[in-house]
């Protein structure tokens, strides 16, 4: 419901495909049970058994995950299926900075911490991009020299606020990282001084980090240890990581892989053996289980914690907390001096005040190619260059399925009811209940084969607000997407008229929607008329409910199934569990009139696989009959609570 009315969403069948794994199906039933604990008799679980016969309910919680705007869907030519973002896998083609649009080679991405290594920074206050500006306001002719700062054009923050100036306008990130290390007056220990960028919190340290043996070497040398001051958080993290790696390596019984990942030493079967031996070798248990026969094992070495600053230990000064609190309470800090939680999430954990915030190098973005999850065929492959908008492969659903567009049909003053004022387009944001609206549904074919389309819709929309829907011409053909000039030549007599009727603004003067006839037809598009009677909203008052009841009775006469269906949905509707009395209150967006439409398309496509065999077998064998069926949801508008007679 993020788009203005009218809209059309297409349901990806992946949400409805029966899951082959019975355990998963059971789980989904359980979760559906869990979602409405107050109503154990909800018929939701039964619905899953009749997946195929079930009418698609745009209001069901599951629909949220299957409805997509048509342009977001892909199509796999191998599976002959629509593919939504959930049925694809992605592979990164390239990394680029969204600010300078330069590509970062994949080998550099990790060491740069997934951030731009150039001059691109985001404001730590408001996240807007920062610009490099000079402080010297030299007039024309003057040389552009002098200190440079990063400034935000949105909130007017500059690096001067944290007392940072740059000597040159290039390589700001390296300058900044140097400055933040030194300006905070912290000498890094020798081991970590070769780090490229302490700013990169997420960078991998594995390759840069020294062997644990070196750390232990540091340990033995108390002189360097004393001289090294407290580390900045990134270096401290690395120190701790290295320290624990060393500890794992030294305490594990088989230190064959000292550079293994952190958890590997513990999750390995060797570690399990060690834990088990803890139990068996303990004297009491050992006695119980007859362990006295076993040789007493050597006691496993015990891991210790970091003890020195070079190992990553930081002992805060005894009055740090008090000093912080005093600073917060002081007048020159105040609320504005405090960094917000949002701001702090991207900063070092010690940053509490606005002065502690550092400019953030811009996070990189990626270009990705997409593959079908089931057959691994590539569906989308963009060009490698970050700036290019072209695709090498792009199999979008719009080239295969007809593009649906919905327009209200403006009732003409001549053919319609005699009205004083010229008929205006119905206000889709406030449709009056029980007043018939006619809509034009245009399906545009982008394939090079003509398509036969069958539309089906429940006569009454699912949900409590039961609107009647009739497709006046549910079966029709759409022409092939052939040469554009064909239309121009054919429709030269009245091209304006054809277009106008498509848009529904003109041409309706002579036309009246007729059952069984298409409204209009073009080279590769066909328009049919939908007749919709919006239902009444529940809980609007006694009279309205009576009317609703009458409406329901009408339905009863028409169609028993639909009535039962809507009744079931009334029961199922309080899934949100927010309202006390669901009969009285309107659920969010329950007044939105959405029509589920089942689209089934058939076409003859050229047989590409066994072309050689089919040669000479007549015309029919050259082509293969294909069909595709899917649900689509048309968002017509919002039903107003007032009767508009």
């Amino acid at each position, binding site marked *: 419901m993020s788009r203005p009315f009218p809209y059309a969403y297409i349901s990806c069948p992946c949400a409805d495909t029966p899951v082959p794994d019975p355990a998963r199906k059971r789980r989904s039933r359980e979760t559906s049970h869990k979602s409405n604990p107050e109503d154990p008799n909800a018929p939701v679980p039964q619905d899953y058994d009749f997946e195929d016969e079930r009418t698609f309910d745009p209001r069901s919680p599951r629909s949220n995950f299957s409805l997509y705007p048509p342009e977001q869907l892909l199509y796999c030519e191998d599976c002959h299926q629509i593919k939504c973002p959930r049925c694809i896998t992605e592979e990164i083609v390239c990394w680029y900075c969204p600010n300078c649009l330069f590509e970062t080679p994949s080998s550099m991405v990790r060491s740069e911490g997934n951030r731009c290594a150039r001059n691109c920074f985001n404001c730590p206050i408001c996240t807007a991009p920062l610009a490099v500006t000079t402080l010297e306001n030299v007039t024309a002719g003057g040389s552009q020299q002098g200190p440079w700062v990063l400034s935000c054009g949105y909130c007017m923050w500059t690096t001067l606020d944290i007392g940072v100036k740059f000597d040159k306008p290039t390589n700001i990130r390296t300058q900044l990282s140097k400055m933040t290390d030194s300006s905070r007056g912290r000498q890094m220990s020798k081991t970590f001084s070769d780090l490229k960028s302490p700013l990169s919190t997420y960078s991998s340290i594995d390759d840069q980090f020294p062997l644990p043996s070196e750390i232990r070497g540091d340990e033995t040398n108390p002189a360097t240890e004393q001289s090294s001051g407290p580390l900045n958080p990134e270096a401290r993290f690395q120190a701790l990581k290295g320290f624990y790696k060393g500890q794992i390596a030294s305490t594990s019984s088989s230190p064959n892989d000292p550079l293994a990942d952190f958890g590997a030493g513990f999750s390995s079967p060797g570690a399990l053996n060690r834990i088990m031996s803890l139990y068996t070798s303990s004297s009491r248990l050992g006695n119980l289980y007859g362990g006295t026969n076993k040789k007493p094992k050597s006691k496993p070495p015990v891991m210790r914690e970091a003890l020195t600053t070079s190992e990553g230990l930081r002992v805060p000064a005894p009055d740090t907390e008090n000093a912080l609190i005093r600073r917060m309470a002081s007048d020159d800090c105040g609320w504005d001096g405090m960094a917000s939680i949002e701001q702090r999430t991207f900063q070092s954990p010690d940053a509490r005040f606005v002065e502690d915030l550092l400019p953030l190098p811009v996070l990189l973005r990626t270009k990705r190619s997409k593959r079908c999850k089931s057959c691994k065929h590539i569906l989308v492959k963009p060009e490698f260059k970050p700036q290019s908008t072209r695709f090498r492969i792009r199999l979008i*659903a719009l080239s295969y399925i007809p593009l649906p567009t919905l327009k209200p049909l403006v009732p003409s003053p001549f053919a319609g009811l005699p009205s004083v004022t010229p008929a205006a387009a119905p206000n889709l944001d406030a449709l009056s209940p029980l007043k018939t609206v006619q809509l034009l549904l245009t399906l545009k074919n982008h394939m090079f084969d003509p398509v036969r389309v069958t539309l089906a819709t429940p006569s009454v929309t699912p949900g409590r607000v039961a609107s009647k829907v009739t497709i006046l011409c549910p079966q029709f053909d759409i022409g092939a997407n052939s040469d554009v000039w064909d239309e121009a030549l054919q429709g030269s007599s009245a091209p304006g008229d054809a277009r106008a009727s498509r848009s529904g603004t003109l041409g309706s003067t002579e036309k009246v929607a007729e059952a069984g006839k298409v409204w209009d037809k073009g080279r590769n598009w066909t328009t049919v008329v939908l007749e919709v009677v919006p239902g009444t909203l529940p809980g609007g008052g006694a009279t309205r409910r009576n009317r609703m009841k009458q409406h329901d009775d009408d339905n009863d006469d028409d169609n028993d199934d639909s009535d039962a269906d809507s009744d079931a949905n009334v029961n199922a509707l309080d899934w949100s569990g927010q309202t006390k009395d669901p009969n009285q209150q309107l659920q969010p967006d329950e007044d939105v009139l959405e029509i589920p439409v089942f689209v089934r398309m058939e076409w003859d496509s050229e047989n590409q696989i066994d072309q050689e065999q089919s040669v000479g077998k007549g015309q029919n064998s050259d082509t293969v009959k294909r069909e595709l069926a899917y649900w689509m949801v048309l968002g017509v508008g919002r039903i107003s609570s007032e009767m508009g007679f």
Partner: protein
Amino acid sequence: MPPKAAKGEYIETDTGNKISRRSQIHGTQHIILGGKTVIQGEAVIRGDLYRTSTSSSASGDQGGQQQPATSTPSVAITIGRYSYISKQAILRPPSRLHRGVHSFYPLKIGDHVFVGERAVVEAASVGNHVHVGRDAVIGSMAILKDFAYVLDGAVVAPGMVVPSWCVVGGAPARIVGEVGEGYGVEGAEGGMARERYRLVGR
């Protein structure tokens, strides 16, 4: 769907531009329209804010247009084909204080661009198939690449670059998502420019 305008609201030029009589266009000699462009009523297009060639005498305040135009009229605003400027939108060339001189730079808008109602565009360049939502503000010298999508009410910070296919929203705007691969296909979302053009003035 635009409401039916009074007869003759739009002036249609030789190249098919449809320009509302109620729009406010300043400095027409500094504006280039690519053809089939729609400019709706009460839209403001500031072609008078063009870059003066001699920077020494230009005043720092709005414009400096008291200076006579040089022999080659500089272009302030370029708009491509099938672009659509909605009601009360403001197009204003970006400006910058450079070496102590406040000067304007040209505003380039590509093809099939949609600028929503009451939006303010001060970008340096707007690519093709860009959507600028209602009430959005595009800051000075911002760059919107092809197929960028600015949500309603977003404030794109000055100097920001919005990469292709990216959706930005919020104030200040951040990249919040990407449009689908089918965006911009004729007739679908992002490809309605011709249809929009057709409906204007009927």
